[in-house]
């Protein structure tokens, strides 16, 4: 990191800190900034960044939004018009709760929160911070380990808005919550949304995060913190459709307690560099964790998917399926870590990573990683990389399907495997149409 860049953020941070924030928040942001200054941007010498080069960031001074954070609408009417446009494409189902963020700030006009059961909270972080900061303090300060992650530290330095979803004990949320993060304008904006999701004992929820933007030079640096109490269930979807020149870095931390169930569905289509980190701590018995992912870079895109499943307690199962389809000069990186701690007997962990290369200039780097310290466990992982099956192509062609169409059908089928894991019909429809459009197929083949 070039010294002047850090200074840029420091100056912005100084302006950002002035306001009526509680002392602990000022201190937390300062710790974030200090950690970011100390760590600097990751270089390729770091094992976790070996294949992902973010050095282009040092050339750009981003605007982290220094005009202070206030609850309510700060976006200009121009931005709102642009955002409504984007929202049309992002929209899934009018019936869902919808929270829209423009350049990292909540926008009430475009959002829509239906009445909810008593005890359920669907709110914004900015609102919570100004009205009842005590409620979010613990989760914000909790062990998010920004000591080795410069981007988590940066997010913490500018933490101020995002979504809060609180589902109390025994409650099933009436409808899914759709969080829409939009970047507008042509400036070099940096948004640092921070989402807090808490599901109480036996509670259930569905959350979808969508990312979209206009303009080519923005940077989204998002963090979502999920806490699942005993027997809680969460389906978490992430639809990454950033503009192709944008930078998207996000971290999701999940803390699961006994008998809880977490299912993640990650779909990555946009951004010039998209890096998604998913950290699951299985801190209780009989937990089930499912991580599904699909990344489809084309052109010069780079998509880096990282998952980490930490089996800390016995009798937990984890299932992971990540698929990549790479075209043109795209790069894909997959790193799936599975840790099985000494006490985590009877763990059953399965991981599978498959990548399809459609072009000779595309590159995929795969690194599954098992670290096992307990003996009574079953862990398997498989990785395959290759082109489309000759046999399957032959089969289709023998039945009169033209070569091009046969290829498209097989690619669609390969990707659709992951889509079928999604249970929400509106999300599934959205993804299917993205896939069909991408491959010029008609819906008839479904």
């Amino acid at each position, binding site marked *: 990191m070039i010294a002047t860049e850090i200074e840029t953020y420091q100056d912005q941070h100084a302006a950002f800190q002035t306001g009526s924030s509680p002392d602990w928040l000022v201190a937390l942001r300062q710790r974030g900034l200090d950690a970011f200054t100390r760590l600097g941007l990751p270089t390729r010498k770091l*094992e976790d960044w070996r294949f992902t080069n973010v050095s282009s960031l040092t050339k750009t001074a981003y605007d982290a939004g220094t005009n202070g954070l206030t609850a309510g609408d700060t976006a200009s009417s121009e931005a709102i018009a642009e955002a409504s446009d984007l929202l049309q494409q992002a929209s899934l189902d009018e019936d869902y709760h919808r929270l829209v963020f423009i350049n990292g700030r909540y926008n009430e006009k475009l959002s829509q929160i239906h009445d909810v059961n008593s005890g359920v909270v669907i709110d914004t972080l900015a609102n919570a911070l100004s009205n009842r900061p005590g409620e979010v303090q613990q989760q914000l300060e909790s062990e998010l380990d920004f000591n080795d992650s410069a981007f988590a530290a940066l997010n913490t330095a500018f933490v101020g808005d995002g979504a809060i979803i609180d589902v109390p004990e025994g409650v099933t949320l009436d409808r899914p919550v759709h969080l829409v993060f939009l970047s507008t304008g042509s400036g070099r904006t940096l948004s640092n949304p921070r989402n807090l999701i808490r599901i109480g004992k036996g509670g259930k929820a569905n959350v979808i995060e969508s990312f979209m933007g206009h303009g080519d030079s923005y940077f989204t640096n998002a963090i979502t913190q999920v806490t699942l109490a005993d027997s809680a269930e969460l389906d978490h979807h992430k639809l990454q459709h950033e503009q192709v020149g944008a930078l998207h870095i996000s971290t999701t931390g999940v803390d699961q307690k006994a008998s809880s169930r977490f299912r993640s569905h990650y779909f990555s289509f946009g951004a010039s560099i998209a890096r998604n980190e998913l950290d699951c701590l299985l801190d209780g018995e009989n937990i089930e964790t499912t991580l599904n992912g699909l990344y489809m870079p084309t052109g010069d895109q780079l998509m880096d998917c990282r998952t980490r499943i930490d089996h800390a307690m016995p009798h937990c199962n984890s299932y992971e399926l990540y698929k990549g389809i790479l075209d043109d000069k795209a790069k894909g990186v997959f790193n799936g870590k599975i840790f099985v701690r*000494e006490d985590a*007997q009877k763990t059953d962990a399965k991981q599978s990573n498959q*990548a399809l*290369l*459609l*072009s*000779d*200039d*595309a*590159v*995929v*780097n*795969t*690194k*599954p*990683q*098992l*670290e*096992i*310290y*307990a*003996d*009574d*466990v*079953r*862990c*398997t*992982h*498989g*990785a*395959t*990389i*290759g*082109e489309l099956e000759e046999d399957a192509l032959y089969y289709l062609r023998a039945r009169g399907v033209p070569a091009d169409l046969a290829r498209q059908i097989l690619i669609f089928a390969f990707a659709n495997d992951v889509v079928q894991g999604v249970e929400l019909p509106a999300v599934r429809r959205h993804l299917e149409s993205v896939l069909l459009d991408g491959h010029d197929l008609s819906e008839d083949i479904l």
Partner: protein
Amino acid sequence: MTSENAMLEEFAQREYEHGFVTEIESDAIEPGLSEDVVRLISSKKNEPEWLLEWRLKAYRHWLTMEEPEWHNVKYPKIDHQASVYYSAPKKKPKLNSLDEVDPILLETYEKLGIPLHEQKVLANVAVDAVFDSVSIATTYRETLEKHGVIFLPFSEAVQEYPELVKKYLGSVIPTSDNYYAALNSAVFSDGSFCFIPKGVRCPMELSTYFRINAENTGQFERTLIVAEEGAYVSYLEGCTAPKRDEHQLHAAVVELVALDDAEIKYSTVQNWYPGDSEGKGGIYNFVTKRGACRGENSKISWTQVETGSAITWKYPSVILQGDNSVGEFYSVAVTANHQQADTGTKMIHIGKNTKSTIISKGISAGVGQNSYRGEVKMMKGATNGRNFSQCDSLLIGDRCGAHTFPYIEVRNTTAKVEHEASTSKVGEDQIYYLRQRGLSTEDAVNMIVNGFCKEVYDVLPMEFALEARKLLNVSLEGSVG
């Protein structure tokens, strides 16, 4: 299981049977490392000027390097100044026949089960015996010469075939390759050189037997094997060391070169002293091994059985340069007690239709930590490249660890890479089944473990397969519960 546990604990004190020390006067230099030491080693070996320059270049580069820390093993920092870099049994520097070898040395090898008298030698295996820093005897030299095969201690090869050595030395592993390869290049003492000329199928298996004897000595040997067009050779490597409380460093470099249609099969049974059950002492085995399939249709196959050493850290690799070349890696790595292993392979596919197979079996017992680390790379030109990897881990006991770090990089659409890994334990039900049929728990475990490793044993030369099986049983004694 508790009674079984107690019973098995009894066996836990595994015996290392090669732990004796040979009392022999040696000619060793002072501990420490400097340019003067490099010069001294070179002058003791009466080396030509170019080799001294080569060593110095490596040494100077080594000074600029830092000890790597990315591996998944833990050990205190090594003080490279405390080690002795040259130690040789005091005797005439050059021997004309085995009769001139010090009888004490012959006895040592006799005790290790490696008789050096040709009439007694295992049928059809030529042995080069390396004791500390020097080679003391090479058997069957004349028979091999008749076929045009050169099999010599490295230091003699430098004198007799300087052109060949110069041509291939460092051509696969350059002096600047990594920290320990650079150190080895600077101070390497001896090793084996082996050259199979065009069209020759080596009539017997070649073998080098390494023995560390002197205290505080690092062993830095260097092996170079060249198979010319259409040649074939099967090469075996074995090693042992006395029991000592201090850790000793063994940093070897092995280079293989296979030209068109040549095949090299390299087998290792590594049984360095692993340290005692408390983790005291033992060899640090930090080795760089790499083969280059330079020619079309060439083949290099690594087979290793790693049972010894406190820490094993090596990645025998193959660079598949020639079209249709084949690389293979078969490995069994056992870590019992406090042993740690970070081992695996690299397959770099450059040429068309190149194929590689990786079969790795890791067994952890006690508090041993076993890591597989491998890389498969399909470069742009590797049209129709094919790789299959399988890494299985077996856990015995609940305090050991098994880890896999496979890296896969593909840059060609027609290339196919498949990787599979699994981790499991010796099942209670499996042991129960075998015990019901009258086997003791220990035999049952041996049977299960040997079954687990069968795919690797099958590709070892026969005598080695037997030795490996025996070794594995010794290593795992008592570790089941």
